[in-house]
């Protein structure tokens, strides 16, 4: 139930009582309430749960996690291959 999906924000419109936007989820577009992400701008990836954005994905952190995982993997591969330790 706590599923939240990242979608790319394609438009932002002021609305009453909350701003709304359209987000693209891998080709599926849905209206999203932006009440909790006033900082979100077109092009940002917002994390959407039951029609409400609960956060903006931090692109730097997303890349950093993958970089760390890939680097750790390389070290292990080298070890498994009997390479320099």
């Amino acid at each position: 139930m706590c599923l939240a999906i990242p979608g790319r924000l394609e438009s932002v419109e002021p609305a009453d009582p909350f701003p709304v936007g359209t987000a693209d989820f891998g080709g599926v577009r849905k209206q999203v309430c932006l009440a909790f992400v006033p900082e979100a701008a077109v092009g940002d990836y917002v994390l959407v749960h039951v029609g409400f954005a609960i956060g903006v994905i931090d692109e730097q952190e997303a890349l950093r996690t993958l970089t760390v995982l890939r680097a750790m993997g390389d070290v292990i591969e080298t070890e498994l291959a009997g390479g320099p330790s």
Partner: protein
Amino acid sequence: MKYLEEYRDPTLARRLLAELAAVATRPWHLMEVCGGQTHTLVRQGIDELLPAGIRMIHGPGCPVCVTPVGVIDRALELAARPGLVFTSFGDMLRVPGTSTSLLRIKASGGDVRVVYSPADAVRMAAAEPDRQVVFLAVGFETTAPANAAAVLLAESLGLANFSMLVSHVLVPPAITAILEDPECLIDGFLAAGHVCAVMGYTEYEPLAARYRVPLVVTGFEPLDLLEGILMAVRQLESGRHEVENQYARAVRRDGNKAAQDTIRRVFRVADKDWRGIGTIPDSGLVLAPEYERFDAWKRFPAGPRPPEPASECVAGQILTGLKVPTGCPAYGTRCTPRHPLGAPMVSSEGTCAAFHSAGRIAPPLMTSTEGPLS
């Protein structure tokens, strides 16, 4: 989709498993709190790929599973009222109450509607002003801001025909209750990433210090889960007990302030009954006094409650990790997703349903080393 597929890379998953095997020197028990994480762990078979001794215990983080029978029965009673529109997230429809379920009431003519968002329920109330529309507001902290915003939306539209049957639960008091149990075997926790996207993780810091357990805020994709497990095991192996954040792309330490402000404006904290577990102090949310006019519990006077029948369901022990589904005699026989005896067999995030859909079978009662042909 971006930010999902990259975190499903099987090559990196294998490397994470190799690293975990290199780091772990002794058995450790870790609990993933969130039912969404249970679903991924079991569906992908990650829990069975872990090095021997690293055991995942599946926690109570499935709102469908912990919603008390009394709430379900109240929902059923309202849903059966002529003229009333009853709205709910889809996964609540098959949850068994004392005698029936929302799905059966819908099948027999009740106006039960599945909504994707609580805002959809508010829009229905605006479109049908002569009918009462009730929304079954269940969930953890992830869902609380959306449900709170729906109340504010109804207020801004001046709706007198919208109300909520609230049964909201909070994660930190549940973790505390699990850690206080003398039978607790858990060495570390994977904290639920989306709950923390809303609330941040400062609430968990005193828990890590007091109970000397690592808590790693973890995402939902296979690589997230494996990295969260690795971070927790590294802490345990080096004698640390801290809050760490694996899911930094979505979670900041202070969480989402605007969402927290909305929760605090609309709800207040109260003691809460959890199905299968019992009452946990300060572990739930109810509507704040200023918004009580949207409270379905108060708007519709309650009829008498039927007594809860005895059940062989061991949901409480499943939800706190004391039993696994395959150890339950009813699992897969008298209790299946089509005919659930208890809530953990209903939602795909329930531990029993996750096990069942992954084809996990109960161990045979008697094992024989001789096959029929030997």
